[in-house]
């Protein structure tokens, strides 16, 4: 049993390792974080283009988690708790990047190319990922996060609402507008599906 899953119900019985983590035991905290890291990493990767961005985001999430262990009482699983922290950081980052006006497209660097044998496939994947993020970055921050959590991550609306600290109605509205805008862009101005199929064709060597 995952040390963090052992307490997923109701606030009462925390697993021994969680009790130690709450008391400030670094070894216990490390054990929990390592157990939760793959799921957290996968979740946060939806919002990042590059490994360095992902590492930074995961790092900040864990720093906040470690700082907050003492007050964690098991109302939810550690995974959900970490996701909430990560969601808040993503919201902040997305809003900040919208304010700054990020550059949307970045071609693969020579270093990227050298690092991988399958250069064409890598570049295609990178470009597609850049394009997907560029599309998502056009959405208001809350719509983007709600959409990714629900439509891509597959989290139910109620869970997305809890993660974002909003109501289900608000969440449904955010997902609705995000889908509406994305669909209009994708279907109307340039198909990501076609680009993906094209990349796959080239990957197959045709």
């Amino acid at each position, binding site marked *: 049993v995952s040390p963090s899953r052992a307490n997923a119900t109701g*606030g009462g019985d925390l697993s021994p390792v969680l009790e130690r983590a709450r008391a400030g035991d670094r070894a216990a905290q490390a054990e929990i*974080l*390592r157990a939760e*890291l793959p799921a957290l*990493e996968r979740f946060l*990767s939806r919002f990042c*283009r*590059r*490994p360095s961005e992902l*590492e930074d985001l*995961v*790092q900040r999430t*864990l*720093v*906040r*988690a*470690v*700082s*907050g262990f003492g*007050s964690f009482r098991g*109302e*939810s699983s550690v995974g*959900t*708790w970490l996701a*909430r*922290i990560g969601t808040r950081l993503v919201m*902040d980052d997305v809003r900040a990047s919208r304010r700054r006006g990020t550059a949307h497209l970045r071609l693969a660097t020579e270093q990227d190319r050298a690092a991988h044998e399958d250069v064409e496939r890598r570049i295609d*994947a990178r470009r*597609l*990922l850049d*394009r*997907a993020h560029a*599309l998502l970055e056009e959405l*208001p921050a*809350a719509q983007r996060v709600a*959409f*990714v959590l629900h*439509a*891509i*991550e*597959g*989290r139910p*609306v109620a869970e997305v609402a809890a993660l974002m*600290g909003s109501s289900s*109605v*608000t969440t*449904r*509205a955010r997902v*609705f*507008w995000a*889908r*509406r805008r*994305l*669909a209009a862009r*994708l*279907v109307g101005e340039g*198909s*990501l*599906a076609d680009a*993906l199929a094209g990349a796959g064709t080239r990957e197959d060597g045709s």
Partner: protein
Amino acid sequence: MSGRIGCDAARARITARASGLTSAQRIALEEHVESCAACAAVAREIDALSTVLDGGPSLSASARERVVERALGRAVAGGAEVDLLEPSPRIYLGGARATLGALALAAAAIAVAVWLWRSDSGEAPGDVPAPFATDEPERAPAPNIEQEVAPEREIDSFERSLDEGEVLELAHARLEAMERSRIAFDADTTTVALVEGSILFDVDPSAGAPFAVAYAEHRIEVIGTRFVVGNGEVRVMEGTVRVRDARGRVRATLGEGRTLDLAPAEPETSEELARARALLSRRDVAGARAILRALERRPLRPAERAEAGSLVAEAHALSSENGRAIEAYLSVVEAHPDLPAGENALFAAARLAARTRDTRATALFERYLARYPNGRFADEARSRLHRGGAR
């Protein structure tokens, strides 16, 4: 009960596929997508987006170990820097109008309190609210939460912007900006005009008072519901709203899950004809022609078409295109000989021909008299013919 669903429901299910659909929902979606190319395209694109994002970055084993170790080390060295309970910035302006004498009561009333949570924790060193998922006993308000009791005042009309996610409580409604928006509030009619952006409205039914949103030349009336307005549409999340157009006519009554395109309704043809005529009276030929060209694409009643044709002729005449003007008048005559507009057009053609010394003038007056011997302009036509040369 039919399992058929519309595009709105289908697209909501396309988005919800990842989080699981019942078999009935899935079958209904598949049936819809098979017969709807537009929804099929949306589903394909969302799938592609999901696939691409699945291929996002990942951490190496060493990076995973690094982030854990750093987190533990930084937390030990740096101490707590947790600001995870920051709510969205929100401003409450709500509440009924009150008097100065109620100041003491108002001080205790949340409805007129102005709360401001700053989202930038960097501005509040030492601010350590609890992390997200704790159930810590209630504490004294954290230092970064500024709580003020607003001085007693009426909620006047105002106009202001809202940042994305900003919440505004206004009278008995709660507004949440879905994106950066701008609103104007009319206190007298409890009406919010959405100038730009999109807003989620949540109106309290227990207030029993009207609340309305003005948007895109429509008025959305509601008593107790949740709906989103913006991007040219109104979408009802819960409850019911009634949508009126600029003339006060009910365009639709929308229930939960329904969306209405709020593109302004076409003005009445009679209004457009009147506008074209007014523009011609000011010699604004280009403006009038633009309206008349737009009207040509509408299905018009015979009288309206005759009127429009006559205005086209007048526009030509004002542009000194007299030959075209006469032809346009005669087209009206040919198409609508039994309408008053037909009679008017024939006499106008004859008169214009006479004024411009067109050789057809006499024949046109004679034609008028032959067709309308007792017409409104018969005496004048006879007089002109009697004077000779139809002058």
